[in-house]
């Protein structure tokens, strides 16, 4: 799915009306029973989509609203008076440190993703292709990992990172993000490798490839889409993370976007226009990646959990 489609929620009210009305003529050709069923489904579907999307729409709408209309008791989902001034206020306000924090967030999320994939792609391959002593124990730990309370691990991690002089440094965050994503990434990648027939690899080795040669020339290209999907999920997770960033980074100029925006909002409590504009800017990369990876993400999540 490409970007424009995934951004369609922005003008959803219009799309929704045509979507509900246009097929009416087509429905008449159906029997009444089927038509009723479809009507009920669309009604329920609209309630669901309204529930999930209204806060998102409200965020976007507020970000384009002028202050005087923002504090107007008329409520509607299209700005009363459209303006870019909230975005300019965020981008021009030196207190937001928005460019600096965007760079921080991008580099931390990117490095965490690369580190995570370097570790998990090989482990996922081993979990898919080899039988070895300790495999069951290792696989079990990957599941048990999520039962460790985050705050408890964070306390131990904080002291450890302090000993390693990694507090208030991006490297500390890169490591914790990359490690935190390991278990899920290994399970998904194992699933992707399982889907590649062993015979392809055996054929390449019979044709004279070494084992690593076969891995590099045959398996890596076939697994690339799966690896990319896992990488995008890892990136979005790191981009969105809040608790670790809040705890480990203490200097404003080193802080990541999710924490910056909370601080920004802290000193202009009631100025919701710029806060929502800032929020939309933070959401955009996540929405773009969701749009690109949507199919893979959802099927990956599903296959991961239905096992």
């Amino acid at each position, binding site marked *: 799915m490409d970007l424009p489609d995934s951004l369609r929620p922005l003008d959803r009210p219009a799309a929704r009306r045509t979507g509900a009305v246009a097929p009416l003529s087509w429905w008449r050709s159906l029997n009444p029973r089927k038509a009723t069923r479809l009507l009920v489904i669309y009604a329920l579907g609209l309630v*669901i989509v309204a529930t999930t999307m209204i806060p998102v729409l409200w965020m976007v709408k507020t970000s384009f609203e002028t202050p005087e209309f923002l504090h107007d008791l008329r409520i509607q989902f299209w700005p009363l008076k459209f303006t870019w001034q909230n975005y300019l206020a965020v981008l021009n306000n030196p207190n937001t440190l928005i460019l600096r924090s965007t760079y921080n967030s991008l580099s931390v999320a990117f490095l965490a993703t690369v580190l995570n994939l370097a570790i998990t792609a090989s482990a996922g391959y081993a979990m898919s292709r080899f039988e070895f002593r300790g495999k069951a124990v290792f696989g079990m730990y990957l599941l048990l990992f999520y039962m460790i309370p985050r705050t408890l691990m964070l306390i131990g991690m904080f002291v450890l990172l302090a000993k390693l002089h990694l507090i208030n440094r991006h490297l500390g965050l890169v490591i914790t993000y990359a490690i935190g994503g390991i278990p899920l990434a290994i399970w998904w990648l194992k699933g992707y490798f399982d889907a590649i027939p062993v015979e392809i690899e055996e054929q390449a080795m019979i044709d004279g490839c070494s084992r690593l040669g076969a891995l590099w020339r045959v398996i890596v290209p076939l697994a690339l889409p799966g690896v990319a999907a896992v990488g995008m999920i890892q990136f979005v997770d790191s981009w969105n993370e809040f608790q670790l960033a809040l705890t480990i980074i203490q200097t404003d100029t080193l802080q990541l976007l999710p924490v910056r925006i909370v601080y920004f909002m802290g000193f202009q409590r009631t100025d919701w226009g710029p806060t929502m504009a800032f929020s939309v800017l*933070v959401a955009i990369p996540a929405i773009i990646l969701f749009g690109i990876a949507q199919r893979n993400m959802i099927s990956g999540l599903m296959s991961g959990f239905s096992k």
Partner: protein
Amino acid sequence: MRLGLPRPRVQRALLPYWFIVPAVVGLVLFSIYPFLSGIWYSFTSIGWVGDDAQFVGLRNYQQLWTGDVGVAKLFKESFVRSIQWTVLVVGGQFLIGLGVALVLNERFPGRSLFRTLTMLPIALPTVIMVLTWQWMYDPYYGLINHYLVQWGLLDDPKIWVGQNDSTLWPLVVVGIWRGFPFMALMLLSGLQGIPDELYDAAKVDGAGAVARFSHVTLPQMRTIIGIAIMLHILWWWNHFDILLIIGAMGQQFAYGSSTLPILSWVEAFRWSHLGLGAAVSVLAMLGLGGVILWNARRELRAV
């Protein structure tokens, strides 16, 4: 190993380990060690990094357990609130998520668009959606007060969140909203695994929609429902972002909406009592112990 080409046996036996060594080293150093040292710190006097971690036995636990003032009071209140929070949030997520999954599993034109719009908020950062909800809860110009007053459900606009006497309910609503799309996604994957033949057979036997749901759908979904609820209990028992940002990012920490993870974090990182914070977390973990053990047993069977 199925790829049976001749090569030295030792090298072949070692090969898999070369592939998993980075993951094992990373996990031991940065998850097992912090976990175990966190438990150890809960028995020590450590306040901040660089302090001597002196063994003090159960003193931190005693401080949490005895008395009805100070941190002991907060601990007991937070414990009860953690249970309320988890039960209400996960219960709401499950009921709504199951309904959503059933609707989105039906065949109808435009289904993929509906699915996309339902799942889209999963990808958005929790932080910005929490801020948006805080704006919707705004006492003067917020969306929620506006509609509740307009529909006659509320006489006057209300200050919903961020006060010392604020209740948990508005936050529970945010928690349910935040989590039900993912719950629906997991349940949907379970629904898709049910073979159509089962429904056809039930129809032939004269089962109506309700009977098909209770005699085909629910039994077939038992495992995935168990896993989904269990995972969500683990996640939402430990949830942090919503409760901290709405409850605590103001000038004053709103203890009225703190759960155990929040109390643990605030003790450890705001008041520099790492040992005491760790003790809160250990007790939170033990509180979930039964659930965790039950889940571990299930997963052990699955591996």
